[in-house]
């Protein structure tokens, strides 16, 4: 009896500590310098504008968007597709950290996993605003498995979110407590998450490539293209995020991590171009009716040419980034690294977003030619979700860095134990 009672109280104590851990993390995220407040405040304003526009959409219906029966998906799903790639790209830190035991990467891997969390939250946000009846979310408990690719996407995305919440959450909690993490509690899941990362982008590609009605998407190379473009476009986002964390949160990140990410781009970006070329060749050389979508994308079709400047801008940005990333001494010029990263991220965002989505609807199966550009409402809803993701990441990165550096630790666990934990952790990292 007494043992049971004792156990209960210790569990209760642990739960109380865990509750305090969350409160302290939230409190830590809520305080900061004036610049931090300005940053988070501006993001919050954009989130509120986005929310307001979403409410308008809920109230009036999708008539406030520029979507139509012909172009039934637009900016929301375009951003969704791109962000699934960003989430999957976190695996580029997870694999070196855990499979190749790179300690320099291990130190920042949590920041990559938290980036995946923010990306998935944005993905789910874009799905929620894209559906006509978000209040019917409970209907997702009755998923059309195994037939619907969208149902599979719901499963893999939420699974990936849970994995990426658990792994950094557990490691941060242990670090906060000054305890050694129990490998069996997270390491198997880390390896699961590596395959899971591939699955989220594969399923998202299958969502498109499985549609016989849309020849532009109905291509076997779509899933490989998705993954490769994620592995080419993801590292620059990680690079930018880690650079900002290093600058603003004073977190020491080794130059070798940046070099590794740069090298990944150097491998992936040429493959990205190769797959892109293979796709273009097949469409344009065959020159069948199905090539209309590609013609429309790059040259315009029957006077409809809204996407032409957009597609060429995207291609040029990618080529420009390719040239920059292959400059031998680019790492010594942070400004140029920044320019290369931004060009590549924007280029791939354009290509994989609207550039992938819209030609799928052009022409429609019955030959209707309808162009699409997001409405003001759609624009602000998108901005709101992006702001939400950045807001979340800023807060999470701030807290994570504080815990990793020992600035935020459990006051109830004895300082000696905590210091010892820190030492062990540091020792492990240096080895």
């Amino acid at each position: 009896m007494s043992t049971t009672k004792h156990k209960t109280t210790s569990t209760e104590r642990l739960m109380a500590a865990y509750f305090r851990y969350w409160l302290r993390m939230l409190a830590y995220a809520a305080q900061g310098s004036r610049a931090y407040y300005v940053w988070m405040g501006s993001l919050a304003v954009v989130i509120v504008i986005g929310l307001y526009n979403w409410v308008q959409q809920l109230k009036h219906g999708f008539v406030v968007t520029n979507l139509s029966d012909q172009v039934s998906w637009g900016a929301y799903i375009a951003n969704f597709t791109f962000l699934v790639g960003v989430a999957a790209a976190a695996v580029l830190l997870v694999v070196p950290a855990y499979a190749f035991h790179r300690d320099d990467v291990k130190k920042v891997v949590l920041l990559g996993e938290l980036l995946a969390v923010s990306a998935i939250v944005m993905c789910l946000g874009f799905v929620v605003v894209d559906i006509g009846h978000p209040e019917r979310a409970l209907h997702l408990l009755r998923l059309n498995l195994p037939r619907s690719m969208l149902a599979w996407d719901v499963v893999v995305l939420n699974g990936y979110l849970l994995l990426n919440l658990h792994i950094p959450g557990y490691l941060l909690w242990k670090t906060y407590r000054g305890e050694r993490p129990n490998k069996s509690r997270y390491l198997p899941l880390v390896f699961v998450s590596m395959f899971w990362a591939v699955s989220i982008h594969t399923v998202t590609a299958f969502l498109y490539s499985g549609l016989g009605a849309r020849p532009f998407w109905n291509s076997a190379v779509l899933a490989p293209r998705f993954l490769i473009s994620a592995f080419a476009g993801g590292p620059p986002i990680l690079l930018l995020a880690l650079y900002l964390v290093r600058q603003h949160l004073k977190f020491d990140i080794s130059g070798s991590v940046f070099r590794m990410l740069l090298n990944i781009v150097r491998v992936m970006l040429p493959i990205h171009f190769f797959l892109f070329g293979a796709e273009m060749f097949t469409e344009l050389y065959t020159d069948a009716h199905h090539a209309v979508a590609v013609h429309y994308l790059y040259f315009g079709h029957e006077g409809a040419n809204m996407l032409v400047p957009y597609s060429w801008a995207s291609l040029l940005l990618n080529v420009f980034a390719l040239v920059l990333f292959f400059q031998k001494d680019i790492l010594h010029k942070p400004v140029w690294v920044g320019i290369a990263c931004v060009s590549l991220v924007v280029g791939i965002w354009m290509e994989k977003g609207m550039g992938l989505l819209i030609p799928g609807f052009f022409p429609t199966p019955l030959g209707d030619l309808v162009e699409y550009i997001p409405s003001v409402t759609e624009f602000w809803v998108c901005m709101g979700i992006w702001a939400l993701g950045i807001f979340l990441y800023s807060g999470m990165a701030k807290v994570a860095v504080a815990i990793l550096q020992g600035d935020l630790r459990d006051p109830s666990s004895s300082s000696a134990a905590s210091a010892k934990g820190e030492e062990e952790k540091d020792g492990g990292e240096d080895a």
Partner: protein
Amino acid sequence: MTELVKLRRSKKHRERARQAAQSRAAQRDEVVVDRALSAKSARRGFLKGLGVASATAAAVGTTGCDDGDWDKFFQSHYKEMNAAEKAKVFERIQKEQKKTYGTDVQLHDPPPLDGVRFAFAISLSRCNGNRRCVTACQEENNQGGDPTIAYIKVLEVDAGSLLPEHGDLYFDDETVPQPGKVYMPVQCNQCDNPPCTKACPVEATWQEKDGIVVVDYDWCIGCRYCMAACPYEARHFNFTEPKLNPATMNTQQGYLSNRPRPKGVVEKCHFCLHRTRNGHYPACLEACPTGARKFGNILDETSEVATVLREKRVFVLKEELNTIPHVFYFFE
């Protein structure tokens, strides 16, 4: 709001849509005259009051929560409702319409019949592109959204090609038929291998045993994946809350067919199941002045469609996609 509506479409499309709407409106008047013999001719007389009445209906539009909202929130999937639950849901829907439009509607749920597989056979030699089927369908099926939904799209294609992509959806139906053109009405093909039902993440749409692909409008989450999956543009989204004219709305309704849909859900042609399952022809067939449309049960060898399939050389749209469509086309 009006400004936002204006933003909806690209300039080019807006122009086309405007022209199409004008021609549809002109057609509607003709229909009133032409179909005077129809049983529903009485209610068509009120069409002129459409503008005023729909404005009234808009004003009545409900906001706020009542008990019905919670029932709706926890409403089960159509396939999982028992008779008692269905009765309760039907009562709610009838009440809602009474409240919104002041009309007494009869809501039915005719089940698919054994040994029946419905199909359409359309004679392209007869169809002359007059679009009567389009408007009759809209009236039968309580279309009141803006933009208006049309289950049937008529394509004007050159006689030398039957490629739908080469067709014109926006031809002027006052000057038809044009020489050298073929008119091809396209609607849901009620496929036996439907890509749309496969796409739906929540099984809000499925094929019934008489071949008709239906949508549970109370289950659809409005993700529009089925629209991307359909190779016939047969699926349509409610971009606004439909506003019906109480005087002209069709009060004979089917739960899975022509009852008023909420905004934010997808709908499609259901072969007028509330009529056809009760032994009547679909509204589009009855409206067709050329007799181009043949409808019936292909499992019944004596039916008109079965005879056409046996004796004519028929074809289907996009056969290569293996959707196994059940709208057949033929020349005489």
